[in-house]
C-alpha cells in the first residue's frame, strides 16, 4: 500500500486517540484503537439503518413495522440510499485502516480448512499461526468489501432508476442488491454471535479497545506472540499451572 | 357555409384548402371524420404546410401560399377537359348557357375589358349578359347595340348593380348612380353551350391556359401530384354519375389575399360545374374562425352592409325611393324560365329595419326616417380606418372585443396610428396589446412621455359570463346561458354600450348638436335601458307587427305587438319592424327558436330541424332545390333532402325547401333564388366583383416571381397599395426571398389564451416553422432563435425545423416558405415572464387588402430569415 494511505491512517489513528482513550488494564492487551472502534460502530450504525430501511423496500408486507420508525415507506425509501452511502464510506475508511492486517495468508487458508473442528468446539485454541485476524474474520471482511462494491454499483443504478439507466440494468441490479444484502444479513448474525456470547471477552475489544491476554493467546496466538514476544501455548500452560482461570 | 357542419358527414369527397379545420375547428372536423368512417370519403388537403388536417388526409399537396386560383383554375380546366362536369345541372342551374355581350375580353394579358389604368378600376359595362332569346345554332356576329352600349358605359360609374360600393379602392369616393348599368330582363342563351360567347365557352377558354404545366410553375405542385389530386376530386362525376357529392371546405387561408374573394368564387364555380351546390354533402363551406363571426357578419359587422346584407346607403341615395331602386334587383333570365328573385323584397326588409331602428319616429311621411341612416361616401373598412388614423384624420377609436394592434396588418403602423389618436377606448377582459400599445417593444420611456393618447380601459365580460346567441358557421342561431357572473367590476357589453349611448343621448338632449334626431329618436324601449336584456334585443331583431296585419291567402292575422313568425310577413308600409330580416323567425310567439334543443333527426342526414334555428327560415342546406333534377327528383335517392310532391302540388322534404314552395318544376324556376337570374353564377355580371367576372390568377402583392401567365400584369390590377411612409412592399428579386404565411394553432385562441396557464403549457413559446432544407442551408437547428424580417418589420422566435414543409420549384426556381403562428404579443404569461422576444407576427405583414371584401393579405408575403 502506498505510504500516503499509511500516513493518512496514522494521522487519523493519532487524532482519534487524542479525542478518546484506550483503557488497558493489567493483564490486557490493546487490540483496537479509538479510530478503528469509531469506524466499526459507524459502519455498524449505517449498516443497520440501511438494513432496516431496506427491509421496507425488500418486503413491506413482512417488515411493515420497520418503516414507521423512519417516518413511513417513502421516507425510508428516500433515506435508504444515503444510509447505504454512509455504510460504504465508513467501511471504505475501515478497509484502508485494516488493509494490512486483513491481507490473506497461508495461515488463513489453513484456518478455514480447520473450520469444522473450530466450530464443533473440539479445538479450544486456534491454530498457533492465527494472527491479528483469523481466516473467518478476513473472509467476512472481504465478503463485505465485495458486497459493498455490489451495493454501490447496483445501489446507484436503483437510486437513479430506469430513467437514467434503462429497465434492464435496474431489473438485474434489483436481484444483485438483494443477494448481497441477504448474504450480509446472514453474516451479521454470526458476527454478532461470535463477538458477544459466542466468544466471551471479544466485545470489549470494540468498547474499551482491550482484550485479556488469555483471550489473545486463545484466539489469536500469533498476534499474542507478536505483541508480547512470549509463546502463546506456553503462556497458557503457565497460567493453568498458576491456577489462574481466564476471566470471561 | 352553404351547408352545415353536420352535413359534411354526407360527403364523398372533401377538398380542404385555405383552411385547417382539424386545428382551428376540431369539434366541427368530427363530421369530416364521420364521412371518412361511414362513407369512405376521401380527403384532399392543399396547404402551404403539412398541417394536422393534412395528417389525416388521403392526399396532401404543398402549394405556394397565394397560388390557390392557379390550382383551382387547373382543376376547372381538368374537369371540363375530362367531362367530369354535371351537364344537366350546368345547363339548367347555372348561367353556363347565357350569352355575354360582345366586347367582353378575357384577361389573356391580365386585364379584363374596361380597365381604367389611371384610376385602377374597371368599367364593367361589357361584363353583362346580352339581351335576346335562344341563340342556339344562330350565326354569331357582334350586335351594333352592344357596341354602342359599351361605348356609353366606358366613362360611366363602376358602381355595380345592387352591389353598393363593391370595388371601392381605399381612396376612391365614387360618383353618381345615374349611369348604373342593369342586367337585361331577357338574356340571350344557348342551351347547347356552343355559342362562342356563352359563359361555358368563355369559361373553357379562360381556364385552357391553366394547364398542369402552368399549375406546376405557379403553385410548385408537381404535375403528377396535381393530376392525381384533381382526378381524385373530379372522380365523383366520373361517367356522368350524379349520385356522389364533393364538398369544398375553406377558411381565412383563402380570404386573406389580395384576391381572396376570387379564390372563393373559383371554388363556387367548381361546385356549380360539378353540380355539388345545394346538395347534402356538397357546397362551398366557409369555416368561421370565431364562435360568432357569422353573427357579426349577419348583423352588419362590415361597413358597407346594414343587418341582413342590405346595402349601406350612399350620399346619392337622396331619398328612400332612390335608395330602394338602387339596391333592389330586377329579374334577368332566359325568357322561358322563371326566377323568384327574392331580393325583390328588399323594400320590405329595409322599411322593417328602419322601423326597428327608429320605432314610432319612422313614418311613411318621413320616408321611415331614412335620412337618419348614415350615408357612406367611401371605403370605411378596418384597414382604411387605421390608415386614416395613421394619417391623422381619425382621432379616436373604440376597440371592443378586438385587439387592434395584434389583428391588423403591419402592427408597427397601427401602434404608430394609436400614438397619433387623441383617445382610445378598450373594452377587454385582459390587459392587451392595444390598451398597452404605448409600451410596445422599442418605445423608450422618453418616447412614452410624448404619447398623448388618452386610454380608457373598460372591464368587459368573457363569453361565459354573457347570455345571448352565437351564430355558427352553419348559420345556426344558438342561445347560450350564463355560466358565471362577470367578476368584480366587470360589466356586460350591453350594459357598457347602453350606458355610453344613454349618456350621449343625454348630452344631445341637453346641448343639442348638428343632427341630434337619429340619436334622440332611436328606439330604445327596453325594460332596463341601462342594461337591456339580450332576449329583448333578440326579440326586437326578429321583429314584430306594429299594427294588425292579415295574410289574405291564409286569412291569418298577426296582432300589433306580436312577434313575427317569418320574414314572409314583412311589409314595406311600416306595419312591421325587424332588426334583421334574415333572423325573422328566430324568436316567434312560440318562443325562442334559438333555445330549441331537439335531437331528432328522422332523415339521418344530420338535419336536426328542431335543434336551435338556422337562417333563413330554419333551412339547413341553402339552395337545396338544386339537390333535385329539373323534374324535381333528387339526384341521389339515398340522400333525399327536398323533392317535388306532385300529389300536394308543392315542394316537400326533410329540410325546409329553400325555394318557392308551390313553384312546379315545369315552370323552371331557378334554384338560386337570391340571384335575379335564379341560377348560379359561373360568370359574375356587372359590379358584383371588382376584379373580374371570372377569377384570374394574380400574384400576391409581395411575390418572389412575376406572374407566369402575364408578367406585365403580375398582381391584381385593382388592388391599390397604400402610400404612407409606413407602407413598404418587397419586389421580386430583392433580399426578401422566402415566402411567409401566418396561421393559428389548435392550442391557442387568437390573442386571448396566452393569458391562460393551460394553453400556455400546451404551446409555451412562439416559433417559426422552417423547412429542414432551408435550416440546413442557414445553419439553423431546432430551438435556436431566428429573426424573420420583411420590408416592414421583424419577428424573433425559436425555429421549429421540420420536414413538413419542403422546398418548392416555383417557375423553375427553388424556393422556400415558412410559417409563423400569430398568437404571441407583448402581454401574456410567457411575455410577462420574459420568455419571448415580445415581437408580433403582424409586424411583418403588408397593408394591402382584397378589393371585394377588404381583407388584408396575411397569407403569402416575403421575408428573409436569419439566425439571431
Amino acid at each position, binding site marked *: 500500500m502506498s505510504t500516503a494511505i499509511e500516513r493518512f491512517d496514522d494521522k487519523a489513528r493519532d487524532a482519534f486517540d487524542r479525542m478518546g482513550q484506550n483503557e488497558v488494564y493489567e493483564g490486557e492487551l490493546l487490540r483496537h484503537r479509538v479510530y478503528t472502534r469509531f469506524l466499526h460502530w459507524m459502519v455498524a450504525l449505517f449498516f443497520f439503518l440501511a438494513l432496516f430501511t431496506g427491509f421496507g423496500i425488500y418486503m413491506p408486507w413482512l417488515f411493515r413495522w420497520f418503516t414507521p420508525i423512519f417516518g413511513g415507506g417513502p421516507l425510508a*425509501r428516500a433515506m435508504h440510499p444515503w444510509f447505504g452511502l454512509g455504510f460504504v464510506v465508513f467501511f471504505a475508511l475501515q478497509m484502508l485502516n485494516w488493509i494490512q492486517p486483513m491481507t490473506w495468508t497461508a495461515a488463513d487458508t489453513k484456518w478455514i480448512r480447520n473450520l469444522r473442528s473450530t466450530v464443533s*468446539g473440539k479445538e479450544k485454541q486456534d491454530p498457533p499461526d492465527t494472527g491479528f485476524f483469523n481466516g473467518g474474520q478476513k473472509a467476512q471482511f472481504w465478503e463485505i468489501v465485495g458486497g459493498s462494491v455490489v451495493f454501490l454499483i447496483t445501489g446507484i443504478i436503483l437510486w437513479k*432508476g430506469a430513467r437514467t439507466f434503462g429497465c*434492464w440494468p435496474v431489473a438485474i441490479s*434489483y*436481484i444483485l442488491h438483494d443477494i448481497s444484502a*441477504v448474504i450480509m444479513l446472514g453474516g451479521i*448474525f454470526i458476527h454478532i454471535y461470535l463477538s458477544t456470547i*459466542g466468544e466471551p471477552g471479544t466485545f470489549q475489544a470494540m468498547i474499551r479497545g482491550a482484550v485479556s491476554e488469555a483471550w489473545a493467546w486463545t484466539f489469536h496466538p500469533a498476534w499474542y506472540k507478536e505483541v508480547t514476544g512470549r509463546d502463546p501455548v506456553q503462556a497458557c500452560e503457565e497460567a493453568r499451572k498458576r491456577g489462574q482461570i481466564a476471566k470471561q | 357555409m352553404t351547408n352545415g357542419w353536420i352535413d359534411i358527414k354526407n360527403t364523398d369527397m372533401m377538398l380542404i384548402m385555405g383552411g385547417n379545420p382539424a386545428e382551428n375547428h376540431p369539434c366541427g372536423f368530427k363530421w369530416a371524420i364521420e364521412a371518412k368512417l361511414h362513407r369512405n370519403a376521401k380527403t384532399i388537403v392543399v396547404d402551404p404546410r403539412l398541417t394536422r388536417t393534412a395528417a389525416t388526409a388521403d392526399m396532401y399537396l404543398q402549394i405556394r401560399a397565394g397560388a390557390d386560383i392557379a390550382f383551382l383554375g387547373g382543376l376547372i380546366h381538368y374537369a371540363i377537359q375530362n367531362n367530369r362536369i354535371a351537364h344537366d345541372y350546368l345547363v339548367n342551374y347555372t348561367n353556363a348557357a347565357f350569352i355575354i355581350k360582345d366586347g367582353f375580353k378575357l384577361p389573356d394579358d391580365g386585364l379584363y375589358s374596361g380597365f381604367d389604368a389611371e384610376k385602377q378600376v374597371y368599367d364593367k359595362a361589357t361584363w353583362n349578359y346580352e339581351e335576346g332569346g335562344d341563340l342556339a345554332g344562330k350565326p354569331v356576329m357582334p350586335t351594333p347595340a352592344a357596341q354602342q352600349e359599351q361605348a356609353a358605359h366606358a366613362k360611366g360609374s363602376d358602381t355595380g348593380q345592387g352591389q353598393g360600393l363593391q370595388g371601392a379602392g381605399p381612396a376612391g369616393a365614387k360618383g353618381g348612380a345615374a349611369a348604373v348599368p342593369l342586367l337585361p330582363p331577357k338574356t340571350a342563351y344557348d342551351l347547347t353551350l356552343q355559342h362562342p360567347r356563352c359563359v361555358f365557352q368563355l369559361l373553357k377558354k379562360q381556364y385552357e391556359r391553366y394547364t398542369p404545366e402552368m399549375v406546376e410553375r405557379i403553385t410548385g405542385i408537381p404535375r403528377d401530384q396535381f393530376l392525381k389530386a384533381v382526378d381524385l376530386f373530379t372522380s365523383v362525376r366520373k361517367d356522368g354519375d350524379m349520385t356522389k357529392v364533393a364538398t369544398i371546405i375553406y377558411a381565412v387561408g383563402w380570404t386573406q389575399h389580395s384576391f381572396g374573394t376570387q379564390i372563393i368564387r373559383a371554388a363556387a364555380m367548381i361546385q356549380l360545374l360539378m353540380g355539388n351546390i345545394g346538395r347534402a354533402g356538397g357546397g362551398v363551406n366557409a369555416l368561421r374562425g370565431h364562435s360568432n363571426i357569422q353573427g357579426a357578419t349577419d348583423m352588419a359587422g362590415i361597413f358597407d352592409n346594414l343587418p341582413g346584407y342590405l346595402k349601406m346607403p350612399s350620399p346619392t341615395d337622396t331619398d328612400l325611393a332612390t335608395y330602394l331602386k338602387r339596391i333592389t334587383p330586377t329579374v334577368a333570365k332566359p325568357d322561358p324560365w322563371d326566377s323568384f328573385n327574392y331580393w325583390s323584397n328588399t323594400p320590405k326588409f329595409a322599411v322593417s329595419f328602419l322601423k326597428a331602428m327608429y320605432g314610432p319616429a319612422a313614418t311613411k311621411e318621413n320616408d321611415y326616417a331614412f335620412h337618419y341612416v348614415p350615408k357612406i361616401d367611401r371605403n370605411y373598412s378596418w384597414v382604411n380606418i387605421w390608415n386614416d388614423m395613421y394619417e391623422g384624420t381619425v382621432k379616436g377609436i373604440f376597440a371592443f372585443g378586438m385587439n387592434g394592434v395584434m389583428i391588423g396588418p403591419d402592427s408597427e403602423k397601427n401602434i404608430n396610428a394609436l400614438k397619433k389618436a387623441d383617445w382610445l377606448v378598450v373594452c377587454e377582459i385582459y390587459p392587451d396589446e392595444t390598451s398597452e400599445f404605448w409600451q410596445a417593444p422599442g418605445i423608450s420611456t422618453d418616447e412614452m412621455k410624448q404619447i398623448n393618447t388618452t386610454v380608457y380601459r373598460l372591464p368587459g365580460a368573457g363569453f361565459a359570463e354573457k347570455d345571448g346567441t352565437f351564430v355558427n358557421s352553419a348559420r345556426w342561431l344558438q342561445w347560450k346561458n350564463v355560466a358565471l357572473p362577470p367578476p368584480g367590476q366587470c360589466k356586460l357589453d350591453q350594459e357598457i354600450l347602453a350606458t355610453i349611448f344613454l349618456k350621449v343621448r343625454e348630452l344631445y338632449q341637453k346641448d343639442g348638436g348638428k343632427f341630434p334626431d337619429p340619436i334622440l329618436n332611436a328606439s330604445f324601449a327596453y325594460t332596463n335601458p341601462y342594461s337591456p336584456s339580450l332576449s329583448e334585443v333578440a326579440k326586437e331583431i326578429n321583429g314584430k307587427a306594429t299594427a294588425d296585419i292579415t295574410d289574405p291567402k291564409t286569412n291569418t292575422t298577426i296582432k300589433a305587438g306580436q312577434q313575427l313568425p317569418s320574414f314572409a310577413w314583412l311589409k314595406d308600409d311600416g306595419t312591421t319592424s325587424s332588426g334583421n330580416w334574415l333572423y325573422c323567425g328566430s324568436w316567434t310567439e312560440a318562443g325562442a327558436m334559438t333555445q330549441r334543443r331537439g335531437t331528432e333527426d328522422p332523415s339521418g342526414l344530420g338535419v336536426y330541424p328542431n335543434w336551435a334555428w338556422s337562417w333563413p327560415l330554419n333551412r339547413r342546406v341553402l339552395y337545396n332545390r338544386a339537390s333535385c333534377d329539373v323534374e324535381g327528383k333528387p339526384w341521389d335517392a339515398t340522400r333525399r333532402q327536398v323533392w317535388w310532391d306532385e300529389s300536394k302540388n308543392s315542394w316537400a322534404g326533410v329540410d325546409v325547401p329553400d325555394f318557392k314552395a308551390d313553384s312546379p318544376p315545369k315552370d323552371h324556376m331557378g334554384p338560386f333564388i337570391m340571384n335575379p337570374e335564379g341560377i348560379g353564377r359561373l360568370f359574375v355580371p356587372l359590379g358584383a366583383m371588382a376584379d373580374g367576372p371570372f377569377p384570374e390568377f394574380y400574384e400576391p402583392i409581395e411575390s418572389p416571381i412575376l406572374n407566369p401567365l402575364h408578367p406585365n400584369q403580375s398582381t391584381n390590377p385593382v388592388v391599390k397599395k397604400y402610400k404612407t411612409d409606413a407602407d413598404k412592399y418587397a419586389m421580386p428579386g430583392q433580399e426578401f426571398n422566402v415566402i411567409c404565411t401566418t396561421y393559428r394553432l389548435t392550442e391557442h385562441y387568437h390573442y386571448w389564451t396566452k393569458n391562460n396557464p393551460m394553453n400556455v403549457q400546451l404551446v*409555451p413559446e412562439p416559433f417559426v416553422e422552417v423547412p429542414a432544407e432551408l435550416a440546413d442551408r442557414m445553419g439553423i437547428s431546432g430551438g435556436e432563435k431566428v429573426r424573420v424580417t420583411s420590408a416592414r418589420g421583424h419577428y424573433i422566435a425559436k425555429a421549429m425545423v421540420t420536414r413538413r414543409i419542403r422546398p418548392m420549384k416555383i417557375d423553375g426556381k427553388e424556393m422556400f416558405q415558412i410559417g409563423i403562428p400569430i398568437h404571441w404579443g407583448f402581454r401574456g404569461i410567457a411575455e410577462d415572464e420574459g420568455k419571448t422576444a415580445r415581437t408580433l407576427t403582424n409586424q411583418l405583414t403588408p397593408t394591402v387588402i382584397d378589393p371585394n371584401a377588404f381583407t388584408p393579405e396575411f397569407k403569402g408575403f416575403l421575408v428573409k430569415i436569419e439566425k439571431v
Partner: protein
Amino acid sequence: MSDRKTLQIKQISGHSGPSPGFDMQRDAEVCKLIDTTICIGCKACEVACVEWNDMPFSPTTFDNTYQTMPATRWNFWNLIKFNEHQREDGTIQWLMRKDQCMHCADPGCLRACPADGAIVQYTNGIVDFQQENCIGCEYCVSGCPYDIPKFNPATKKVYKCTLCSDRVGGGLEPACIKACPTGCLKFGTKDDMKYIAEERAKQLRENFGFEKAGVYDPQSIGGTHVVYVLHDAENPERYGGLPRNPVIPWSYTVWKWLFKPVLGTFALFGLVGVLFHYVTVGPRLPQPQPPLKDSTPREKEI
C-alpha cells in the same frame, strides 16, 4: 376503489395471500380504443386529463415539436406524441399518438412493485396506483415497457393514468374519451373495442390504401386495455417508440417468486445456526479453563 361492483381487485402488488373478493362477481374487461388514423392532435384529451385529475400546471419549453413535452410527467399523464415519418417516396407522414398507461393485462409495474397494495389491478383490467401505499422506490418505472409511471419528488410517490378509475367506477367514460372531438377515442368492453378496431383496420386496408393497417394489442404482455389502430401496425416504433413486442424484465418474476423466499430463508439460517451452535457446542472461552470432566452424561445428570 369507489365501487366494488365495477372495481374488483384482481391482483395486488407485494401482497401475500389471495386478493380479497377476487372472483366474487362477473366483470367485463374495459378498453380504450385510440384510432391514430383519425387523431388530429388537438390535445383536448391532454387538457381533460389535467382538469379532471386537478393537476397543477407545470412550465414547458419549446423543443422543436408540436408535442407539449418530451414525455409524460407525474402531473401530466396523457401526452400526444408527434412524429414525422418520411415514406420511401420522400413524402412525410405526420403521426400522432396519444401516449398514456396501457393498462396491460400482465402489468410490469405491478410485477416489479415491492409495496403491499401500492398497485392493484381490477378485474375490469384497470391498473391503478394507490399512492397511500406507495413507497416511491420507482421499481415500477423499470418494470413498465412504456415508460409510464412517473415520480413526484415532492411527495416521493409515483403517479400515472388511472384510466379514470374514479369515473369508470361510477359508470362514466374516462375524461379523455369524453373530451375527444373527433371520436378517435372510444371506450367500452375489450371485446367491443377489439371488434371496432379490427373493422377500422380492415377499412383502412381495403379503402384507404394502408395495406399494413392493424391493431396494436401486444400479446407478449397478455394484451392491453388500451388498443391502437395504426396505419402501419408492422412498425409501431414510428409512433413515438411504441414497442413492437413489449416485455417485462424476467428478473422480476425470478426475483419475486424464487429469490425472495429462498434468500429470506437463507438469511434466517444465520440466526438459527448461531443459536443452535450456542446451545449445542456452546461458547468458545479463553483458555485456560478448568479441566473438563468426562462429557458422557450419566443417568442422574440428564
